[in-house]
């Protein structure tokens, strides 16, 4: 490493960012990994279920154990991890403006910039949605699995995608009861094996159903749900009152694109992957050749795909900075793409694969 050289700066120390930083450091490139939180790992440490995939994707290993492995590797490699460090600005020319511990402000020039800022859970507004007791599914998951506190005892889960169904299961593991999982669409969204294990625990699933309102004086005391028609309109007379103290919303995520906008990355709209997001090429490069986007910011998928995207960007950035020869870059890239490809098949993966292909096509047009 040359003393005057600008490091690769990775923003976000979740699964994607950690993997990008690890690939860069392994290749010998200078890298700085920044995260606003006090602890690295992003949302991995609240994932206490065994992951899908195959051995090379760490299948069967629980999310938080994967997080521990990645942290151990980053420590072993001696990556410069800067926690409690918020990136609040990016100037063209790749000057990164960071604020450490809310008190110390500084700028750092980046050789390459890798944005792994993740996604934000969507809200859903209905009468009573601001009442204490209404929260995102991820919020409940953080409370039970990271902080070990139960936000409530009887839960209504809104949304049957994998997040909703997995968090419903984990709430039961934490000692809560789940009154129901409701889904606006006529069919459940999550993996059948997930819904099956929640159903056999006695949790009913209601499709074509929405929440009408949350009721309670100072916090949730009940939820009113109702069936909806093909136009998503509530059907009069189908209202049902559920006796719950907590309503969890698992209604999708939106990529956290703010920094990519500051870096003037071209944004595109891909509803299947969460809405607006920076376009990227097959190396995860945005329209700004020095800026890579990986993980949920580049289209909401899963931790397993996020890790592979992070590796792809880390490998390419290391090569672009002169720390990897052409052949090694090609071999490592092909291996990583193979693993990514394996995760984007089947009835669930194909939709994401098709959406990702559209991103590549739109990036070429950019």
């Amino acid at each position, binding site marked *: 490493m040359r003393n005057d050289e600008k490091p690769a700066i990775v923003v976000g120390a979740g699964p994607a960012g950690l993997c990008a930083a690890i690939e860069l450091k392994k290749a010998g490139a200078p890298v700085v990994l920044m995260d606003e939180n006090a602890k690295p790992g992003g949302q991995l440490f609240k994932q206490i*279920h*065994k*992951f*899908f*995939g*195959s*051995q090379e*994707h760490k*299948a*069967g*290993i*629980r999310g938080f154990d994967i997080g521990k492995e990645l942290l151990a590797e980053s420590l072993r490699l001696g990556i410069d991890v800067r926690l409690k460090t918020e990136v609040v600005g990016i100037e063209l020319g790749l000057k990164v403006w960071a604020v450490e511990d809310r008190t110390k402000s500084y700028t750092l020039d980046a050789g390459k910039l890798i944005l792994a800022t993740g996604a934000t859970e969507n809200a859903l507004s209905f009468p009573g949605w601001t009442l204490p007791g209404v929260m995102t599914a991820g919020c409940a998951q953080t409370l039970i699995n990271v902080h070990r506190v*139960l936000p409530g*005892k009887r839960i209504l889960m809104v949304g049957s995608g994998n997040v909703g169904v997995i968090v419903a299961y984990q709430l*039961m*593991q*934490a*000692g*809560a*009861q789940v009154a129901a*999982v409701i889904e606006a669409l*006529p*069919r*459940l969204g999550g*993996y*059948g*094996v*997930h*819904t*099956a*294990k*929640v*159903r*056999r*625990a*006695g*949790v*009913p*699933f209601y*499709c074509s159903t929405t929440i009408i309102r949350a009721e309670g004086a100072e916090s949730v005391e009940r939820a009113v749900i109702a069936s909806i028609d093909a136009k998503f309109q509530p059907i009069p007379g189908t209202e049902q009152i559920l006796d719950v103290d907590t309503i969890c919303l698992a209604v999708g995520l939106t990529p956290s694109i703010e920094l990519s906008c500051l870096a003037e990355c071209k944004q595109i709209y891909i509803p299947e992957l969460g809405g607006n997001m920076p376009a990227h090429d097959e190396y995860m490069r945005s329209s700004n050749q020095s800026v890579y986007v990986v993980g949920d910011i580049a289209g909401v998928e899963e931790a397993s795909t996020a890790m592979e995207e992070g590796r792809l960007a880390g490998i390419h950035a290391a090569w672009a900075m002169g720390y990897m020869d052409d052949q090694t870059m090609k071999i490592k890239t092909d291996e990583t793409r193979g693993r990514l490809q*394996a*995760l*984007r*098949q*089947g*009835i*669930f*993966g194909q939709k994401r694969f098709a959406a990702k292909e559209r991103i590549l096509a739109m990036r070429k047009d950019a």
Partner: protein
Amino acid sequence: MSNNEALKTTGAPSLEELLAVGQLASEEEMEGRGCLCIECIEEIPCNPCQTSCPQGAITVGFPITNLPVIDRSKCTVCGLCIPACPGQAITIKSVKNDKARIRFPWEYLPFPSVGDSVRMVDRLGQELCDGRIVSITNPERNNKTAVITAEFPRKFVQDAISIARSHTDV
């Protein structure tokens, strides 16, 4: 492939949906030492069942979204695949005279104890009949997924999938 109507509306596969993909074991297959039952009827990217099997009795192959196929001539019903399955979709069922047994994964507290009376449940979580806990194992390699064996009347063997979760206030 069918559209798995029951799975995608109730959350659980129906017997017909399992049968349609060859995943409903017959009572003949369950006689004696029992047989492996995998209920994994959707193409999801996952193959730890295959890699966990020391006998090579489960094949997913490539792509890893293929549904698992069991070679019963190789399967020794060792049960290593039960905790390995991230979807908790694997059980071992056996029948003998008028009794049936099921070995299934379990990740809730409190754990039952051997000899406990429990309520068996079907795939929809409805209570079927009384059962009794025969064994419970949770070695290190299970990575926190316990494997429980329960015994119950044979006539419920196709519908039984697990035991009722006892609700305790934390």
